[in-house]
């Protein structure tokens, strides 16, 4: 078997394994559905009235941002799953098998795409119920926005794969995710326009890839001026994958149970 065919086959075996556990672990399913829904309701109805987004209803401004945040954090399942696999010794078993060195991680990140599709459907449905609408978007622009979001989710899966491999327990993975990455999503244009932020923070938010990607989805779905956001957003995703996928695979080659 060629090494590419082996990698694809092993990846599918492991992606299937990751997906089979979803219906058996309902708490994961809840994380994928209830949590983002809570965020939408919280921001639209609690904070929404106090936030000014000139030219838009807040729900229209918010939905692309909140979908970016939810999809980016979709890969968090990979961090939890991998740190658990390391802890339980499953990674030791996989590493002792004559299988592709990339398959465990590729299987994880691939199954994340499937889960992110599910999460996208739930979020859009809740968004529509809360009053969200695409504004002047062609079918192609809506679709390109979805592709961008799934690509973003894929990039973050690799980041979270690295987090998972460096965490000795799922709890550690959890705290790394929520102390390092979560605040980054707030210092961006995900929830409020960056122009409203004080100097210093504003420049930071404008340089933040979450801003670039949220603004790119807005330009595709709400017909806002695109500037360079759309292609820059794709560049960001590819750069993140190009940096974090090799780092994660290299870490995988050396990780063992504690």
């Amino acid at each position: 078997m060629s090494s590419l065919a082996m990698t694809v086959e092993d990846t599918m075996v492991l992606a299937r394994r990751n997906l089979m556990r979803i219906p058996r672990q309902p708490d994961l399913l809840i994380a994928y559905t209830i949590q983002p829904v809570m965020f939408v309701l919280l921001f639209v109805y609690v904070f929404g009235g106090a936030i000014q987004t000139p030219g838009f209803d807040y729900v229209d401004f918010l939905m692309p941002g909140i979908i970016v945040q939810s999809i980016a954090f979709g890969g968090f399942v990979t961090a939890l799953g991998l740190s658990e696999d390391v802890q339980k010794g499953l990674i030791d078993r996989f590493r002792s098998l004559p299988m592709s060195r990339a398959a465990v991680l590729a299987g994880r990140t691939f199954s994340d795409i499937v889960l992110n599709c599910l999460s996208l459907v739930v979020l859009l449905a809740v968004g529509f119920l809360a009053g969200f609408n695409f504004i002047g978007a062609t079918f192609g622009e809506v679709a390109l926005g979805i592709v961008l979001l799934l690509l973003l989710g894929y990039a973050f899966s690799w980041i979270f794969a690295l987090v998972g491999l460096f965490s000795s327990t799922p709890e550690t993975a959890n705290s790394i995710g929520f102390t390092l990455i979560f605040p980054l999503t707030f210092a961006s244009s995900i929830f409020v326009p960056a122009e409203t932020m004080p100097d210093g923070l504003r420049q930071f938010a404008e340089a933040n890839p979450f801003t670039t990607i949220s603004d790119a989805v807005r330009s595709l779905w709400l017909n806002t001026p695109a500037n360079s956001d759309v292609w820059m957003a794709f560049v960001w995703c590819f750069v993140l994958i190009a940096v974090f996928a090799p780092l994660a695979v290299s870490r995988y080659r050396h990780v063992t149970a504690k």
Partner: protein
Amino acid sequence: MTEDAIVVEGLEKSYGSVRALCGVDFAAPTGSILGLLGPNGAGKTTAVRILATLLEPDAGSARVVGLDVVKQAAELRAQIGLAGQYAAVDENLTGLENIEMVGRLYHLGKEQSRVRATELLERFDLTDAAKRPAKTYSGGMRRRLDLAAALVARPPVLFLDEPTTGLDPRSRIGMWEMIEARVDAGATVLLTTQYLDEADRLADRIVVIDHGRVIAEGTSDELKDQIGGERLEVRLEDPADAEAALAALAEIAEDRPVTEGDIVRAPVRGRPGIIPEAVRRLDDADVGIVDIWLRRPTLDDVFLALTGHAAEEEGEAAPV
């Protein structure tokens, strides 16, 4: 044919300033069980991880079925099976799905993986639990499932890292029988254990390691002969007589007798008439006894003599 399936030479591995292995050599002939015996933190797990291609040694070399564990790691992985002390099963998959997955990852193909999984579940007495998630399994069932997964591709070499730690006596004996069955089928097994009775029962040869060094090697009998002699043991009617008993037995003992509770233990050279002589001396000293017997040294005695500490003593373990 007595070619060695496992050959380890001068293996060294450190974790930061902790030296887990400081130049270890051993070999296991094809079709035999080699027992790696030592306390927690002795370096047993490190040795297994190097042999199973999970860790690279700092120095030295290791070959398994003639393949170098570093340079030919990819080829070697098709020839080995690993079962560890953590029972590496996916708790959310059923027993059947667990073994099938490992079979697929050995590239047995879908069909063959399922056939083997069904076969192994049957042999390991897990057929009734085959369709239940592994998280519902008992500790013993998980270990059996873990071992079954390691056997799915019938690898010629098996590494078992403390396969019975934490198991109840009945499950332990069950595991031993399964391990012996694999060896009867021609496999070579490297087994780590901190239980002397396990090494005694299973291993053809035993390598005793402590603080990352091999401190003794041989068959169970050779190791016992190494510390020589037999043990004369006396159970006292009254533990308060211990002092008198020690004095009475000192002259016939080869080394200083010791007491442990109401038992007095004296290393002696076994010869006819030694028991009557001991009884006479104890009687002269007015020491009442309940029982008296001679026994061969156990691996426990060997371990104590070699290392100065008991095998199952929980030392402050180095990372393993």
